[in-house]
């Protein structure tokens, strides 16, 4: 895994997109995340907002932007459920921050690295969700790590297809 100087990578390879992409892609991910389970249930092992958060955080390489985007996506996801608002928010805030921080350090154009990062960050998001729900808030929560593992695999596979597609939307200087 090639390690690079933080400043040089951030200055040289920050991905830029039209403003519409920043607005529509996260919105589309939230809409599809809410609608697709009606078609795919019970095999809804994916988290599109998380994949999109990771993608933009890795591409922009800006921890503040990654943090804010993760927070907004997580809060929107929470608002659609009947659970407390903020559990997914905290999980995705951390994911956005970490993805952007990692994006500064390592080469993220490689598909294998993207796949691996998505898998690990998905598991991290699940672990944070569990921690906040059960230990921070003390809520009774039934949990299945197998489902979380399947979700991480699903997110990685989606990223494999979605990341190259979103790469095409970049603005080239």
């Amino acid at each position, binding site marked *: 895994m090639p390690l690079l100087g933080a400043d040089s990578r951030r200055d040289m390879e920050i991905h830029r997109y039209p403003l519409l992409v920043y607005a529509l892609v996260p919105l589309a991910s939230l809409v599809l995340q809410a*609608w697709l389970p009606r078609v795919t249930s*019970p095999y809804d092992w994916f988290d599109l907002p998380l994949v999109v958060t990771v993608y933009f955080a890795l591409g922009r390489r800006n921890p503040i932007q990654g943090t804010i985007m993760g927070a907004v996506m997580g809060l929107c996801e929470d608002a*659609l459920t009947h659970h407390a608002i903020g559990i997914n928010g905290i999980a995705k805030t951390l994911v956005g921050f970490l993805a952007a921080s990692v994006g500064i350090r390592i080469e993220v154009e490689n598909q294998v690295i993207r796949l691996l990062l998505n898998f690990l960050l998905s598991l991290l998001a699940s672990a944070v969700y569990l921690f906040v729900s059960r230990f921070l808030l003390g809520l009774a929560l039934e949990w299945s790590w197998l489902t979380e593992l399947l979700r991480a695999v699903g997110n990685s596979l989606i990223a494999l297809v979605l990341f190259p597609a979103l790469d095409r939307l970049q603005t080239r200087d």
Partner: protein
Amino acid sequence: MESFFIRYRNLVVLLVILVVQIAGLAVQVRRTAGGSSTLYANDPSEVRLIRLWVSSIISPPERMIHAAKLGVVGMWTNYLDLLSVRRQNQDLERTIGRMRLEQAALLEDAREGQRLQALLGFQQKYIYTTVAAQAYGSSGSDRSHVFYIDKGANDGLKPDMAVITADGIVGKVRDVFPHSAQVLAVNDPTSGAGVILETTRIRGILKGDASGRLEVVGVASDQRIKPGENVLTAGGDMIFPRGLPVGVVEKVLRDPDRDGLVDILLTPAAHLNRLDEVLVIASTEPRFPPDQQRDLAASDTLQSAVSPAIRDQVKASEIMAEKLPGLIDPNLPPDQQPLHDSSNPNPATPPQQPLHPDEFSPGAAAPAGSAPRAESTQKPRPKNPSAAPAATGSGVPAQPAANSAPQVTPRRNPE
């Protein structure tokens, strides 16, 4: 100090956002008397506002996608339906005719039941008004089994209204927005409904498990609970009317936490993962809704036209019953009866006669059933011919008492 914030601005922003969210979570959770944590039943107004905003942003495109899907699927299914519509129409007309007769027959029982309930001061509530709605979206999380419908406060919906389909119960309205509403499905772990097993009349609490399966929890272990038994709403939870289908017993499992109790896994009556059209029960009343009353009036008219024919059928069945050989011969001892099971090593024995019999001793007084039995030999069918089709009836239509229709046992000719 300024350089510290500039140097660590990423971490500072992260911490600020995390702290704000943790503080936001703290106001949504409360401690119960038992010391555990739970969410408030009703969201604080700020939280509700966030849900409303997000729903307002996500719902329009979601509805468009759903409408497009329905359009494509509808075009194909409409074409397929056209191919067999004539035959289906004939079948349906025959079914409606038959059901009208059954309805008329059961109507008398229902009216009698209402009269008795009025005498007892108990009022059976019937589903009076419903609002048809389209389910278009979900929570997007398998940890939260909620879905959204396209009717809201502007259509008269309120929290805690029951949501059903023709197949069975689906959930209850949890949060209402102006043009949409969030419905908590019955298979969510936080939902709850009072249910009763149809034949054994065992009661329990319905909830969902982590994987979204339906289960009845906290039921005392009972050998009579068998797979295949229907489960209905019990009506005690003030949300679901009594007698609505919930599901069918699939499996009985021992409660891992409590000895002597079992959890009953159910196959849901409604297709909870594939919901399109649902009905929200907007009100219940102790009388039939106007549509049903019109149906009942039509059935009454139809019945009066057909009743001579039914009377003839009843007469014919009486004649046949007299001529057919009986299943129990009163002149033969029990072990020589036609239906005697010689393979049973432990046949039921009659109770021993007491030393000093009195009027309460078994067999001392004239058997209570002897006179009516003799009478029923002469009149095996009820006097009211309208009761005859009740044997084939399935229930009073479109109201919860449908499932409590009298069980019709097979008749035996006493001769």
